[in-house]
């Protein structure tokens, strides 16, 4: 396993070098083109030491961006996580190189994949509560959002369906109308659902 770790570390270093070379000159006006909307979390029992939150990131700018960190007063530690499925095994892990938010696209963090992970909760995440969350982007800098705490088993990013989704719920087929995850019993599973995070990236209507 150390071998794997070593490669991963050197890979990250390499990727960092690459991206630093390709960082385009950044236009000042563009910072406002990135928005974070509908931040929410599932309520957690009083004894819970960890929790997760979801948020929709919209990049209306012309520059690719990346969510590189998060912070909140409710937890000792806040990390960016994803969930991957390998051979029927569920693996939750930190995304150390951040979550890309390409220009013109919307990236939804939602159950079964990308999430903001809180470790060492200092307050109970109780249904109905709200709490602040600061998201740090590579280019857009810090964005503060208010996280709404919903039911323990809440599934949807947008409960009222009032926002223009542009049919994006159909992409990747991971969410059904009732908010449950798509799929079937195994014989019907023709497609490889290896990545639970698939379908999170959706093209936005150009404006």
């Amino acid at each position, binding site marked *: 396993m150390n071998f794997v770790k070593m490669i991963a570390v*050197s890979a990250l270093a*390499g990727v960092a070098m690459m991206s630093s070379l390709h960082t385009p000159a950044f236009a000042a006006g563009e910072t406002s083109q990135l928005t974070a909307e509908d931040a929410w979390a599932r309520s957690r*029992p009083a004894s819970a030491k960890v929790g*997760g939150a979801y948020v929709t990131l919209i990049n209306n700018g012309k520059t690719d961006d990346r969510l590189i960190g998060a912070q909140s007063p409710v937890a000792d530690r806040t990390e960016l996580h994803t969930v991957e499925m390998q051979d029927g095994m569920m693996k939750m892990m930190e995304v150390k190189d951040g979550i890309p938010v390409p220009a013109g696209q919307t990236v939804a963090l939602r159950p079964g994949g990308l999430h903001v992970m809180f470790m060492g909760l200092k307050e109970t995440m109780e249904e109905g509560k709200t709490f602040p969350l600061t998201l740090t982007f590579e280019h857009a800098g810090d964005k503060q959002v208010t996280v709404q705490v919903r039911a323990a088993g809440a599934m949807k990013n947008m409960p009222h369906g009032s926002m223009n989704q542009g049919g994006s719920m159909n992409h990747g087929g991971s969410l059904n109308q*009732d908010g*449950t995850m798509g799929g079937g*019993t195994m014989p019907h599973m023709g497609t490889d659902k290896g990545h639970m995070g698939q379908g999170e990236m959706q093209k936005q209507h150009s404006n």
Partner: protein
Amino acid sequence: MNKVFAYAVALLVIVGLTIAALVFTGVLSGPGQKSRSGIIAGAPQIGGPFELVNHKGETVTDKDFQGKMMLVFFGYTFCPDVCPTEMQTFVQTLDLLGEDADQVTPVFITVDPERDSVDVVREFVAAFHPAIVGLTGTPEQITQVKKQYRAYGQKANSEDKEYYLVDHTSFTYLMGRDGSLSTVFSYGTTAEEMAKVIREQL
């Protein structure tokens, strides 16, 4: 010159990542792999005797669950994403079954007995549905039940004593009234599908 160097590094990185991916899949192809191909109807090797502690602190065995079907999911309460999602699918399945819901016992078995005490498990299941039974036990008891169900649960980063993550089996098992395996559902199976399969066996 720097650019050339960077591209060379990038190339090496890609090669490295590919090797890493290969090693990863090789190392981590756990016991779950065999059951990927489909519903394993009545396979005798899954299920069997266990002794655990329920969320009320009572010692229970597989015998206590017989007479009803059992819907079993292995997870851990420190998991804020996938495990609540599966519990929500259980709740929806029970809702869809309506009056027939009492023919099936939904069961959450922790793969993290060190942190998931009786109290922690009780609070976790109570947040979803009063019918859900949460089970924990000694590490030995959990190892035993995992073996019976060919379920997997392994700390991913055990060096983090407080907030380690646990990789775990994502399947949900439907057990018949006699305790033998009926159906294995892959993660992502809808409540409608589960309710349908359960109804066929009422």
